[in-house]
């Protein structure tokens, strides 16, 4: 039986000359099955041509709207607009949407040819963590730019290894292949950006790299595909038009000095990184990271490469035989370099080719902005998020003083607490003074004036141990009443991130992974205070937010629960406040009084 199976390839190869009578029926059926899979997936393969016809590569459609994945290094030479051929023989204009330079991924969007839009054929995404060495795979693409009629080349081969780590190709740390899939399927120049499928026709990776030495830039039997599960983590960021970044922990993790022992220990750690503030320190042994065991450097690099910067992921470490689980906020990779324990200013990232954008129908879908691959798509996602959120209530009329009567549950003590937030006119009658106050048992305890000049960070962090709750609530009211008009510094979509609200009945879930929710993120900045807002992707309900008084320190974390409708506006009735490693307290809301503005405070350009 083994030999019978072993002749599958050969029979397929000599099919033309064989009469067919000595070929086992099952072999023919297996071949027919493979051909059927290829027929199914072929229409999703994109041949990418750089503008001006110089170079190009491959891509694959992943949604009916025309979103397609490819490599960063394919679009790098082509600029923000390009042309793409599909196997239907039609050439489409396309525009860059999002970039992941470190992971070598780019998201582009093909423009429908028909006025009323069209549904593009698209690949279904598989689960690359289920791929094993020894599985079969299909690579489709445009090697050597052969696809002049846009029909992809198909190659077929074995998965040679999974969870592979390949070092960055540039000194700046770009084009790092983490947790990638290694194949002996032929991958050649021009295959870059094209799809790797499993034999069920599901997309499991994006082909982008080959090992080379003595043969030159051609297939050496060793090709690599970026795993689709890694790309899924970045998909929200890519769709939001971000020029996204990978992450670092801020610590060096190395094998134990004793060669006979397995295990990775922290050998260096940045003084002010989040991991250290959460408790990780020198000589701690890393047990698992984001749920994966970490036994060697490649494992560690693989896990780090899976997540965009800013994500919070669980990390388990061992110290003196005790295991600790912490939630670590990942630092940006390109923004900081670890040397002498001090962050350094980042090197300027290599930019896309600076050629004047050619006159293409795709140009009107492109808007340049620093930090973004294409700000046009950020605005699209942001406006979609915002309009979804507005369905929970229109607060623009409630621009007067907000008074919230609550009971504060803090340190096992319950205290009546009133929160007052307002914008007041200054004594000159023109300048605006923001303020937020906390009354405990009827007495004014804390007051923060976010806009007053000459204050230090600690003036803005009241009440103590909250990380800046009054500032956070001031920003919250501002977001609800003013929307994008309230944030002069930033108001942009931040892609997708995990969010970890703790269960109400216990201080900590059994595992942090159980608490995880996936959320859409909005980044804002007002009065030089950045904030991050977490929304449910389902109905755009606001689940919580974080406000940084000091960018180098921990934010004030606010978690919103028990939404109830108050005069047609959905408002949270349990507000949990966390800072650093602890819970500040929980406010149980008794009553909201959201007064309308006495007179218009700000000109609203909208509507």
């Amino acid at each position, binding site marked *: *039986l*083994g030999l*019978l*199976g*072993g*002749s*599958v*390839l*050969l029979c397929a190869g000599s099919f033309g000359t064989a009469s067919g009578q000595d070929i086992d029926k*099952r072999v023919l*059926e*297996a071949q*027919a*099955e*493979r051909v*059927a*899979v290829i027929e199914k997936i072929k229409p999703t393969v994109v041949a990418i041509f750089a503008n001006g016809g110089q170079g190009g590569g491959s891509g694959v459609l992943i949604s009916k709207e025309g979103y397609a994945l490819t490599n960063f290094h394919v679009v790098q030479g082509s600029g923000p607009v390009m042309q793409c051929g599909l196997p239907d023989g039609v050439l489409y204009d396309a525009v860059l949407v999002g970039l992941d330079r470190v992971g070598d991924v780019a998201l582009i969007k093909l423009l429908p040819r028909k006025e009323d839009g069209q549904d593009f054929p698209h690949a279904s995404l598989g689960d690359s963590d*289920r791929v*094993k*060495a*020894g*599985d*079969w795979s299909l690579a489709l693409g445009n090697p050597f730019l052969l696809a002049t009629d846009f029909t992809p080349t198909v190659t077929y*081969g*074995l998965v*040679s*290894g999974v*969870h*592979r780590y*390949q070092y960055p190709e540039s000194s700046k740390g770009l084009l790092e292949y983490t947790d990638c899939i*290694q194949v*002996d399927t032929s991958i050649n120049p021009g295959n870059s950006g094209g799809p790797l499928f499993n*034999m*069920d026709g599901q997309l499991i990776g994006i082909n982008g790299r080959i*090992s080379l*030495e*003595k*043969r030159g830039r051609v*297939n*050496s*039997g*060793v090709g690599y595909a970026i795993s689709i599960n890694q790309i899924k983590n970045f998909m929200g960021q890519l769709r939001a038009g971000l020029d996204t970044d990978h992450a670092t922990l801020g610590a060096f993790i190395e094998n134990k000095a004793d*060669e*006979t022992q*397995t295990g990775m220990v922290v050998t260096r750690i940045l003084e002010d990184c989040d991991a250290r503030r959460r408790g990780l320190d020198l000589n701690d042994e890393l047990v698992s990271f984001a749920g994966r065991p970490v*036994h*060697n*450097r*490649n494992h560690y690099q693989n896990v780090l490469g899976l997540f965009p910067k800013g994500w919070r992921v669980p990390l388990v470490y061992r110290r003196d035989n005790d295991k600790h689980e912490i939630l670590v906020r990942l630092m940006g990779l390109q923004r900081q370099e670890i040397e002498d324990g001090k962050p350094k200013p980042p090197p300027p990232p290599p930019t896309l080719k600076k050629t004047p954008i050619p006159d293409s129908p795709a140009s009107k879908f492109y808007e340049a902005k620093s930090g973004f691959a294409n700000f046009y798509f950020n605005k699209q996602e942001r406006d979609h998020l915002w309009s979804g959120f507005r369905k929970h209530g229109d607060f623009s009329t409630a621009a007067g003083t907000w008074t919230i009567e609550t009971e504060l549950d803090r340190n096992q003590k319950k205290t009546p607490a009133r929160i007052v937030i307002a914008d007041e006119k200054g004594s000159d009658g023109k300048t605006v003074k923001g303020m937020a106050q906390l009354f405990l048992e009827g007495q004014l305890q804390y007051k923060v004036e976010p806009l007053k000049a000459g204050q230090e960070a600690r003036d803005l962090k009241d009440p103590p141990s909250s990380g800046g709750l009054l500032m956070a609530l001031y920003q919250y009211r501002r977001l609800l009443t003013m929307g994008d008009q309230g944030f002069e510094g930033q108001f942009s979509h931040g892609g997708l991130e995990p969010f970890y609200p703790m269960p109400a009945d216990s201080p900590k879930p059994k595992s942090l992974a159980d608490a995880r929710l996936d959320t859409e993120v909005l980044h804002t900045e007002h009065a030089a205070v950045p904030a991050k807002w977490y929304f449910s992707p389902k109905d755009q309900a606001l689940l919580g937010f974080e406000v940084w008084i000091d960018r180098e320190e921990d934010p004030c974390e606010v978690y919103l629960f028990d939404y109830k409708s108050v005069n047609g506006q959905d408002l949270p009735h349990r507000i949990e406040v966390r800072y650093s490693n602890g819970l500040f307290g929980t406010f149980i809301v008794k009553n909201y009084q959201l007064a309308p503005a006495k007179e218009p405070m700000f000109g609203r350009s909208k509507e």
Partner: protein
Amino acid sequence: MKLPRRLALVITAASALFVLLSAARPQAPPSLAGVVDQVNRKMVKLFGSGGFRGLNSYGTGVVVSPDGYVLTVASPLLDTPDLRVHLWDGRRFQAKVVVTEPELDAALVKIDKVEDLPYFDIAQAAKAPLAQAGDWVLAFSNQFQIATREEPLSVQHGVIANYSKLHGRRGIFDAPYVGDVYVLDAMTNNPGAGGGAVTTRKGELIGFIGKELRNSLSDTWINYALPVQVVADFVDKAKRGEYKLLVREKPTGGPAGFHGIVLVPNVVERTPPFVEDTFPGSPAAKSGLRPDDLIVYVDGEKVVSIKEFRDIVDKARPGTVFRLEVRRGDKLTTVDLKLEPLPPGLSPKKE
């Protein structure tokens, strides 16, 4: 059409083939994940000397006994007291070389304090008939040093394209082994692949991936493997400590030959054999040796000093051909040095 989830993921290698091939439903070819995992457990990653272009510090080996004998290729990688072996489960060991056989380009190394390792029974494998052109094979190696510790080796698939005489060369020299080899259509000729295994699709060992060689007829890199039958005797005798090296005859006796290499002054006990100059028209000049070349190996023997170099070369007769590997810049280059009779007027100089 969505295929039902295959059984291959949950059942072991041997039975997976049976179940899937006898299934009535048409299927895509079965995954070989089970076989790949089993073979990987019988293989090791080797790390030793080297580390510059043309001379890798990593390689592959096949476990041939439960108590830690490992078959690999004879290469400069092994010339170190710090030879390390990583097992499939992540354990790491110091290894020592038992025997190297330059004529087969094979070596046997040993790690201690292990027992019950998964291994290939080479003697048993050698009893099987030779594989044939057209047979379907898997190739396992740590090419490009992709894996360390418990990370699995790379697996490739291919077909035996031919069973034929090896016409290989490394640098400008013919490969020492001139017997029959399996020629593969899989790209096995990659850095670090030497010492890897070639198996059937059931995971039975049939061959042993050889050193990186070019085909001396076509000048292309050749993907080949030595049949297990060729190395079985070496492994068996070397394990028992009874192996006698195959000896290549070298002309001896009579006046010493002339090479024309002028080395740097031999000022300390271990002066490295750097070439200072060559006599015009001498064998050294003809061989392409250049000033500043560092002679690293003579016929596969490592030479670390001028004295060691002279011990080997100065007694050889005219007509003797030495294979020198020299380091030029950051590259290793192989040159052919054919000794000639001493020209009249020159007398052998002794220090």
